[in-house]
């Protein structure tokens, strides 16, 4: 598999109306890919992931999103996702709401190729009532009443990771969350990475490989592609940007201005990073080897 540009990968593999899994559980959030989707004006997307943070909010503000399948949408540790909240209160967004566990199970079912999985969650409270056609079933061995969650196979996944080899074997370490489960459930995967390393290096640490080459549809080298989230071992979380986003996203005009400057107003991630204050350019900071030694 030949590496490509992110612009090309998004053009080729993210269709209007597609269901898009957005990787990154706080860690390795694929901001570069999401911004490219906004820039290219993709429309009517269904976005899915368990805990959705401000990248999802930006995609909503960017006009790309018709529907969410999520377990949480917010600005973690800070507050609400304001574009999401406004869209929902205005009725311009369809929401299919799960819990982080049960949505993980939907991806898991997709990944291992079964149409549903049973769970002991979603048995009580108001959440099950608001999921259309949610099925229950009886365990044929114990008689226990369980909830069945349907498998979910997104059309395409966006994943950012530390590194890959040229064949497309992607290595990710640090927090995973639902990233690999969701990506491996998806039909196609667009992987952005901080760097390409020789195949020998990947094959010396095969336990760090999370997406095998045969599953990766497009591989793009995009250093800094997860900012303002972080990449374990490369650069840390830019917490100030998340706090700033809470302020600027409260007013639609300010949010539009942010997107105009930092998304539409830049050609690519390199240009995006060039516009950041110097203090945010704390990457790359390699955190040292870790590993087996």
């Amino acid at each position, binding site marked *: 598999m030949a590496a490509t540009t992110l612009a090309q990968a998004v053009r080729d593999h993210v269709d209007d109306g597609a269901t898009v899994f957005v990787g990154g559980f*706080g860690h390795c959030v694929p901001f570069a890919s999401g911004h490219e989707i906004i820039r290219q004006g993709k429309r009517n997307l269904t976005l899915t992931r368990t805990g959705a943070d401000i990248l999802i909010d930006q995609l909503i503000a960017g006009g790309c999103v018709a529907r969410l399948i999520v377990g949480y949408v917010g600005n973690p*540790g800070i507050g609400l996702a304001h574009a999401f909240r406004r869209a929902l209160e205005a009725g311009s967004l369809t929401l299919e709401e799960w*819990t982080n566990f049960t949505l993980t199970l939907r991806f898991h079912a997709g990944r291992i190729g079964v149409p549903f999985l049973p769970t*002991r969650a979603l048995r009580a409270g108001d959440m099950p009532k*608001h999921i259309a056609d949610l099925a229950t079933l009886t365990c044929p061995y114990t008689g226990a009443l369980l909830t069945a969650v349907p498998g979910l196979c997104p059309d395409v996944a966006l994943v950012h990771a530390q590194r890959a080899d040229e064949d497309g074997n992607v290595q990710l370490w640090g927090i*995973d969350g639902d990233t690999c489960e969701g990506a491996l459930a998806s039909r196609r995967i667009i992987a952005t990475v901080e760097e390409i390393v020789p195949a020998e290096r990947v094959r010396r640490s095969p336990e760090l490989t999370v997406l095998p080459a045969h599953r990766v549809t497009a591989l793009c080298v995009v250093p800094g592609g997860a900012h303002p989230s972080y990449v374990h071992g490369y650069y*840390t979380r830019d917490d100030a940007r998340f706090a700033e986003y809470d302020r600027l996203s409260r007013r639609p005009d300010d949010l539009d201005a942010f997107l105009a400057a930092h998304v539409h107003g830049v050609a690519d991630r390199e240009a995006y990073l060039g516009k950041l204050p110097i203090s945010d350019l704390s990457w790359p900071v390699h*955190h040292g080897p870790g590993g087996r030694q």
Partner: protein
Amino acid sequence: MTADIESRNLALAASLELSDDETCFVGIGLPSLAAMLAKRTHAPRAHLIFESGAIGADPRVPPLSTGSPCIAENAAMLGDCLDVFGELQAGRIDLGLLSAAQVDRFGNLNSTVIGDYEAPRLRLVGSGGAHDIASLANRFVILMPHEPRRLVPKVDFVTSPGHLLVGDERAAAGLRGGPSALITGRGRFSFRCGEMALVEVFAPFSVDEALEGLTWPVPVDEAVMRRSGFAPAAIDAYARLERLPAGTG
């Protein structure tokens, strides 16, 4: 000043709910602070588990997100959501620590919506893992500042099932545990037949202050305990943690 005392009481009292060697599924915010306090005082061998997949976590600073660097960097194991929710579903999590926008007298939690679900007055973040923790942990503890508008007879939406309604509705749904305590900055409530009852007040607050503004008749234990304070070492640990900025550190 009163707010400071309440915050400290809440964190310190909640930390006491976690015993040493227990496994604890931890949420962000007050739950993280309480769990970190427990690790630094009476429960150094408690196993802190975050929904991002971190197991045996020991963050140096209060995390902003379950996926934050400080959670990853010092963890004993980094699995994924399925690993940790699997442990939860298999009944291997002793304690969940949860907060929410609203809690009701039966310990039901709302983090989804204020107002009607279909026509929200204020749309909140949603369950995340809270519903799962409340359903599947062997017990859970609710951490809630003493804000009467958030302590209500009935939540607008049951995101995370507490005791549902008085009775055995929870057991009928095949759920474990349920809330064992609700901690505010003024007191500790336990659940009797599924309904919260005041069992302890924290100095300097009285029973009346612990119930101030609550709009239904909350039962008070006959032998309600009065906690005059917390261990000096725990107070020191709180002061050190509280000085740290939340975030990546």
